[in-house]
């Protein structure tokens, strides 16, 4: 099989390279970026809400975060694409890709809110007390003392979240949204070369995540010295 396997791979790359790279990789990166960027905004809001004095808000947000963290991503995608539109008919108008993006953002937001929470918690409470003892408000203390230090804990974890999301977006192929795993489905459907197609896709995922995690490590080293 050896020689046909490799020649098949070369054939696939020359014929379907644009599907893998221009559609698959680009969509995967785009989806992940949107998910993590949206998730960071949402996660910050979640984290703020969890520190709120208004108990019902805290309870609702905690419940959302726990449910998202406690259920599989695929199930959440099903819920977003199939189940919620049954309950709220207006959602039926949304294209699948939009539903998928919303689910990805909420999912990422839940994880990011935990990242932010633990990043803040890791900043020693003594510094907060010192700032408050000087008469600074809780808000100024957070902005000037706690957050600048928490960010150093949060950014690396956000990078890891990005890498996780890259892998998780593969689940969105269930809805044929065009990312890397969808390009596997397409090419395999046309050529019936399962093993070869899967190998190409696997290598691409690995290259993506491996490069990113190396970049992340370098950035982390740099930040430690700053």
């Amino acid at each position, binding site marked *: 099989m050896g020689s046909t396997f490799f020649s098949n791979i070369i054939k696939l790359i020359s014929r379907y390279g644009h599907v893998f790279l221009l559609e698959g990789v680009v969509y995967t990166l785009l989806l992940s970026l949107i998910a993590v960027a949206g998730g960071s905004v949402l996660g910050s809001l979640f984290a703020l809400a969890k520190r709120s004095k208004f108990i019902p808000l805290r309870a609702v947000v905690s419940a959302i975060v726990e449910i998202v963290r406690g259920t599989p991503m695929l199930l959440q995608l099903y819920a977003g694409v199939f189940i919620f539109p049954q309950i709220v008919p207006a959602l039926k108008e949304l294209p699948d890709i939009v539903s998928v993006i919303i689910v990805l953002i909420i999912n990422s937001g839940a994880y990011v809110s935990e990242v932010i929470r633990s990043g803040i918690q890791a900043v*020693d409470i*003594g*510094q907060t*007390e*010192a*700032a*408050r*003892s*000087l*008469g*600074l*408000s809780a808000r*100024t203390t957070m902005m*000037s*003392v706690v957050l*600048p*230090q928490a960010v150093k804990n949060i950014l690396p974890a956000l990078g890891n979240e990005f890498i996780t999301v890259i892998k998780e977006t593969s689940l969105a192929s269930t809805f044929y949204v065009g990312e890397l795993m969808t390009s596997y489905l397409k090419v395999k459907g046309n050529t019936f070369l399962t093993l070869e197609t899967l190998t190409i896709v696997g290598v691409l995922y690995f290259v993506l995540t491996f490069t990113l995690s190396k970049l992340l490590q370098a950035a982390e080293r740099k930040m430690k010295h700053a």
Partner: protein
Amino acid sequence: MLDIKNIYKNFGDLKVLKGVSTHVEKGEVISLIGVSGSGKSTLLRCMNLLETPTFGEVWMEGKLLTPVDPYLHFDVIRASKTYARLTAEGLTDEEAIEKIKKNDLLHEKHGAEGKEYVRLMKQIYAENHLDANLARQKMGMVFQQFNLFNNKTVLGNITLAPVKIGIARMKAAKRAGKPVTETKESIQAAAEKKAMELLKRIGLEDKAGSYPSSLSGGQKQRIAIIRALAMDPDVMLFDEPTSALDPEMVGEVLDLIKELAKSGMTMVVVTHEMGFAREVSDRVLFVDEGYIKEEGSPEEIFKNPKDAHLKDFLSKVL
């Protein structure tokens, strides 16, 4: 300067302070001594509201820092209709107040009287209450673990609060339509000038641009002290300022605190350094089992202790 009235502090079921009252005069230096876990830090932290007392009041120069409680203000009680009714029924002033307190008869839900109560509470609040953030600007605190801001240089540590609070004050004055000559830049420059003077005073002006991680414990603690001084506090609270230091650095920190004491600063110091307490204190308080068990001049406390626990404590630490 500071009036501590009947402070109770519980952490869950743990009763740490069980009714502590004391008064800190201007210029006075007070030491808090006692065994580990007796509540010295808790008492000190109640003074600047880092811990909110479960019950009791903290007053600073005639202003109440702890939450306002209607039952602590007889004027409010006397203004209520319940009081009028009870006294009309023949109760004396004292009996009426007692009965109202016991049965929680002052409450918002009591119709017209409730409204009167809310109005009086607001008035009392406006006249007597001082926001804890404002109060803390005038109360410096120094911690056992230094607690310098790791993300700021030495200069940044010292100037953060004066600059942020100075700017907030300037903006408030502007909003109130008062003439303002300061700018953000002038506030920053003034804070830096003062910080450099303070650094010079402790001989560390060459450390202005360094980060805390590059300093020795003794240097960190002396900088923490001048960081508090940069706010021009009326009173300084110290919580075991030398306990986390290597022995060879204790001296430099104690010298700075002694110098402060001599300059007339009002201070409350939690300490295990009995020699220091004896030398600088005007008054020593022995905290034990949630109470101030004994208090007096260093002379009285160290030479002639009366309380059995204090005798025991001193025999172990001296």
